């Protein structure tokens, strides 16, 4: 299996690569459009600030490439948020794959949400073998609003979409690569899609 982690200069992608290595897969870091198109599975990571991440995607033409990918694509954290229509972070237009918007938590809770929270209302093969209310690790200040593409929900200040799916595109707000053995199971499920 050819597994690509899109490398557009965003965040800690080593930990995703190591997580797949622990599962026995060598993920390749790449920003080469041909290589990404030819992959069996694509990971779209992202840690950092949305508008500067979007600038980097546009510079490399990845903003055009990603929405047209046909194989399973998994956006993680900011990666998932950038796949939405719009995010309040830096008033940034997203890739428009998921038909929802990303908003900031209000200051009546601590921001960022940092730590382990549960995912529930699970609705996808991505969560095969994962029980309702399983703990996942999250670090984020912005959240995706629910839409009919929601496949997992989490409560923090409000109830929001902690995972989304549209056709071959999947996104998780949590970090499966940092969420212990259950997170690893989700990455394995993604490889089985």
């Amino acid at each position, binding site marked *: 299996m050819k597994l690509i982690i899109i490398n557009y200069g965003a965040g*800690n992608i080593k*930990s995703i690569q190591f997580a797949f*290595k622990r599962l026995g897969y060598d993920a390749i870091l790449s920003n080469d459009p041909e290589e990404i198109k030819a992959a069996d599975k694509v990971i779209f990571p992202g*840690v950092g600030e949305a508008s500067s991440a979007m600038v980097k995607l546009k510079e490399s033409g990845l903003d055009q490439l990603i929405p047209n990918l046909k194989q399973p694509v998994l956006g993680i954290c900011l990666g998932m948020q950038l796949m939405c229509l719009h995010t309040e972070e830096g008033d940034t237009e997203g890739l428009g794959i998921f038909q929802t918007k990303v908003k900031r938590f209000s200051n009546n809770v601590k921001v960022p949400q*940092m*730590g382990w*929270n549960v995912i529930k209302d699970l609705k996808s093969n991505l969560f095969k073998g994962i029980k309702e209310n399983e703990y996942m690790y999250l670090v984020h200040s912005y959240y995706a609003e629910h839409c009919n593409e929601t496949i997992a929900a989490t*409560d923090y200040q409000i109830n929001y979409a902690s995972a989304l799916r549209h056709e071959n595109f999947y996104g998780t707000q949590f970090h499966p690569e940092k*969420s212990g053995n259950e997170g690893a199971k989700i990455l394995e499920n993604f490889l089985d899609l």
Partner: protein
Amino acid sequence: MLTKRIIPCLDIKNGRTVKGVNFVDLRDAGDPVALAKQYAEQGADELVFLDITATLEARATTLEMVRHVAEQVNIPFTVGGGISTIAHVDALLKNGADKVSINSSAVKRPELVNELADKFGSQCVVVAIDAKKIEGEWLVHLAGGTIPTEIKLFDWAKEVEARGAGEILFTSMNHDGTKNGFANEALAKLSEELNIPIIASGGAGNVQHFVDTFNEGKSDAALAASVFHFGEIPIQELKKELRKHYIEVRL
């Protein structure tokens, strides 16, 4: 619901884990990678590695250790100790660290907090603050708590939040190594005055201390070393006890 976090702290010197009692008397407690893996399996929510050598020569050894931890451990971890440049942070994150913790270098040059938050995002910038209560006033201390400053704890904490810190790791020098409980009054004040997560550090001696720092201290996470390293408080048992006290934890 977001759970309260339990964070073992591993002090690292020359690639080995040590724990200072009041930061002076050091004891050896094993290989950091093996310990980290064990803690992840026991249910630790995160790990903190504090490089107390942090000399230029030791830096390469630390990077190698960070890489080994990232390869083998599937929970988040923070690295701190002697970090003062963007290049150093970049190297740590590229080797797989999730967050970095800065302390004295931020006091000496507060702009560093802004620079790191802008470049890498607030989520990976932890500002560690060592403070000691002297004549009723909490004052920030430098260099592992050995050098006093005139900076007031709460002013400094608010300043680093405004500069982009994603989290604060507060160690009370009055409590560290005593095993008499955390500095809950100061912790609660930090939680009330700031809107970022606060990690309590210094003073863990028994299970009740953790209950108290989450309830009275309003802490988001609690960090400890020796009570975990020497098996005095097994993490699973600690978490079960916390649940009995209606404190949300990951089990």
